[in-house]
C-alpha cells in the first residue's frame, strides 16, 4: 500500500492510497456500474 499525503489549495489535506500491481474489476450483483 502506497500512501501519499498532499496539501490542498485551501489548507486541507488529501491522501492518495495506491495498491500497486493489483488489478481490480468491479463484478457481481449489486454493481450499478
Amino acid at each position: 500500500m502506497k500512501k501519499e499525503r498532499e496539501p490542498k489549495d485551501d489548507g486541507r489535506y488529501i491522501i492518495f492510497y495506491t495498491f500497486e500491481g493489483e488489478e481490480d474489476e468491479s463484478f457481481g450483483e449489486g454493481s450499478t456500474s
Partner: protein
Amino acid sequence: MNQLRWDPTLEEWVAYATHRQDRTFLPPAEYCPLDPTKPGGFPTEVPRESYDIVVFENKFPSFAPGAPEPDEGSPLTPAAAGRGICEVVLYSEDHYATLAGMSERRIRNLVEVWADRYAELGSVDFVEYVFIFENKGEAIGVTLHHPHGQIYAYPFVPPRPKRELEAARAYRSQHENRCLHCDLLSQEHEDGRRVVAKGEHFTAFVPFYAHFPYETHVYARRCVPSIARLSGEERWDLARVLKRLLVGYDRLFGFSLPYMMVMHQAPTDGENYEGVAHFHVEFYPPNRTAEKLKYLAGSETGAGAYIVDALPERTAETLREAVEGAAP
C-alpha cells in the same frame, strides 16, 4: 463555526456546524466533486486524472481541528470548541460504483485504508473516538452519489458506543471477565436462525434485538478491539463477508439498498478496552419492505424506544436466502 453544547438532561454533547447548510446537494453526475479532475474539466476535490482510494478532509466538517473556543455557555449548559477531524473516503473513481459491486480485493484494500485511518486519527491527542461510517442512498439523506464513506474523529466517546462499552464492561465484571460480544456471537452461532453469512473469521447476523427489520451486525470471531488489530487473513475475510452481505442486500428487494454502515471499536482515549471493545460493523437499512421505510418517529426519537414490525428470525431468513442466492 464548529461548537459543542452540553445537554445536561441527556448528558451528551450536541455538535453545531452552521456552514454545513451550504454544502453541495445532489449535483448532476457531470459535476460530481468526488470524481477525478479531467484535463480541461472543472476542478474537483481530487486534483488527479485517476485514483485508487482517496481520503481528504471534509470541506464542510462537523468538527474541525482549529475550532475556536465558544463565547457561549454556562455552568449548567457548558459549550466547547467543536474540535475534531472529519474525513471523506472515496472508495473508487467510478462515479456509478457501489461497495456491493466492488471486488473483494478492492473492499480488502478499503479495509487497509480504514485500519490506517483508525490508527492515524486515533493517535491525535484530542481524538477520543474514530468513527468510520457510510450513509448510502437518498433515503438516508446523502448529498453526493459517488461511492464514499466518512470518518468522524470525535473529541469525546459518542453516546451509543459509550453505552455499548459501559454495558460490555459491566457484563465483564459480572461474568468472570467474559466478553459480552463474544457471548452474543456464541449464542447466535448456537441458535443459527439469525445468521446470514459466515466466513472463516467474521459472522454476519441479524441480532436478536435488531432495531431495524434488516439490521445486520458483522462480528469478528476473535475478540479484537479495533480494525487496526485485524490480521491480514482477517482483513480478507471481512472483505469477503461484507461483499456477500452487500450483494444479498441488493438482491433483497431487487434494487441497490440504502443503508447506514457504522463501525464500533475501541475508543482512542488512552483507556484499556481489551475484552470490552469488540470490533464489529453494524448496518441499518431503512427499508422494511421494497416500498416502505422505517422512520424514526415519536417512540424512537422522543422516547428512545424502537418499535419493529418484523421479527429478526423472519427477516434473517429472507436475507440469508438473498445472500445464499447470490453466492457464486
